[in-house]
């Protein structure tokens, strides 16, 4: 073998070696990616609970809870009354100490917002109260004022009302409660029964707020009783049963979730046109009184139905999106 052929063989061997090493690296890289995909409880986690338990005397409320939460992640806690949902939220917030296990936070200064199940009735206006909470949290005055007005507007509560919180209804207090939790755009938002006492419109507004915060990277943990499809579809649901945290297999299939969304249309429509539309859209529920109609339209029919409704010169008085739980 000449020196030239020998060199070529070495070069080929090196090429093969490089190819093999590269192949190995790609496989390794894929493995690492997969590991992160199934195990988010790594250094990136905002908060991580390891075998956390909580007992009051001899009564064990929670045992061996392991959980991790990343930015933008949403988690729903379900369970009966006294099952330990609020206790778990308080543990995550650091309000109460764990009896066993460890809680790791990404930072000691992790910004958390917490809305307890109900806010006590204070002798302050909502604006005074929120200014105090913002100032205690160290928010700059201008940013605080803007944020307070923004939240009042979003949740449809008068920002400069002179009424004290002691005169507020349950739903209005709940809105103030949620506002104080969301004041700082926290990295981790913990909500205990946030929809309790809210009317349909306010619940939808709150959902919009939560979706917005989540999109900005806020991790949200909510203790819920009622079904809430649009929030469940973007959340991992756990059920607390006998102190244990059990992952609940929720139907997150978009199609099935899509089906639970309906639109409620109030409008005016001539009788003849109504019959034609009713025949074309058999899944639409009709209530009629003269020309006035109310239609419950499945989400998948909405686009076509509205097109035809206007084509037959129907007049829309209002159109509302409705979800199964709200």
């Amino acid at each position, binding site marked *: 073998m000449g020196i030239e052929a020998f060199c070529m063989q070495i070069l080929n061997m090196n090429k093969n070696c490089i190819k093999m090493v590269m192949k190995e690296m790609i496989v390794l890289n894929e493995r690492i990616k997969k590991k992160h995909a199934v195990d988010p409880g790594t250094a990136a986690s905002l908060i991580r609970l390891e075998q956390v338990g909580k007992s009051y005397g001899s009564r064990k409320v929670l045992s061996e809870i392991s959980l991790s939460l990343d930015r933008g992640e949403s988690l729903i806690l379900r369970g009966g009354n006294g099952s330990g949902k609020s206790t778990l939220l308080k543990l995550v917030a650091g309000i*109460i100490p764990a009896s066993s296990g460890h809680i790791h936070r990404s930072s000691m200064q992790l910004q958390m917002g917490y809305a307890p199940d109900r806010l006590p009735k204070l002798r302050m206006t909502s604006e005074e109260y929120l200014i105090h909470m913002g100032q205690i949290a160290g928010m700059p005055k201008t940013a605080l004022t803007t944020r307070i007005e923004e939240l009042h507007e979003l949740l449809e509560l008068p920002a400069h009302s002179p009424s004290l919180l002691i005169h507020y209804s349950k739903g209005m207090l709940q809105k103030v409660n949620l506002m104080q939790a969301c004041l700082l755009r926290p990295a981790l938002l913990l909500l205990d029964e946030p929809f309790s006492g809210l009317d349909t419109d306010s619940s939808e507004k709150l959902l919009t707020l939560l979706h917005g915060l989540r999109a900005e990277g806020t991790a949200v943990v909510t203790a819920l009783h009622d079904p809430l499809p649009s929030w469940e579809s973007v959340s991992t649901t756990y059920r607390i049963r006998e102190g244990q945290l059990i992952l609940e297999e929720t139907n997150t299939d978009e199609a099935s979730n899509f089906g639970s969304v309906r639109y409620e249309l109030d409008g005016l429509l001539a009788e003849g046109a109504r019959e034609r539309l009713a025949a074309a859209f058999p899944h639409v529920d009709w209530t009629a009184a003269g020309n006035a109609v109310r239609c419950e339209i499945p989400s998948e029919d909405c686009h076509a139905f509205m097109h035809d409704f206007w084509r037959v010169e129907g007049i829309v008085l209002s159109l509302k999106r409705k979800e199964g739980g709200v």
Partner: protein
Amino acid sequence: MIALLQYLHRCFMRSYRYGAPSFIYIAILMLIYSSGPNPVMGSYAFSSSILFVAAAAIGCLVMDVEAANQEMATMLHARSLVRLSGAKLLYAWIFASSLGLFAVIYPAVLGRLERFPSWEELGMASLYHISLAGLGVSLAGWFTVKLFESRFYAVLILCTWLALAFGAGGIGNALPEGWSWMTYILPPLQLTLHALTFYDELGTGAKWLPVGATVVYAAVSATLLLWTLRRRRLDYPGE
């Protein structure tokens, strides 16, 4: 801290919880000084001992001024229970001290004392009142629903502890030989009352000793309380 103090001031004022201890204290002063003339430092001894009790009541009321749910939210905004509880103790101390300053100035200005006190007497009387206000508040912090399941038992034990502080001298005399050191565990109220009663007979060191002892006792009590609360957090025993 200033934001916390402002918030606590608004909560306390609008809760009207300050009413009972403040008005009772002021009413007692008015009653006592309705007749005169009164001895200068002897009168201050009386008003400071009553302030000690009023400060304890104010301390209890300020520590529990927030409902449990609200306290959780405030704690998260303040990012520390120690900061929040420290602010409550500080606020209660400031509030009780203002009552103490009133107790010093009111009889002097209205001429209810046998003579107008000297500036030194006014200054020292103010210090005695302020230090006893701090002592009362630092003790009261322990006897709230944060550490006791029942408010009734908390108040009962606080009252017993205050009564023991008043009777420390007698308890010391009644204890067997070698056991009198036990009175050092009790709040050093008697030192202040003794200094005020025999003020003219005491040297400089003996006049300042009660202030130092009271401040040290109050500081130790408050530090231990904050350390305990930091460990327990808002794990109320009633839950």
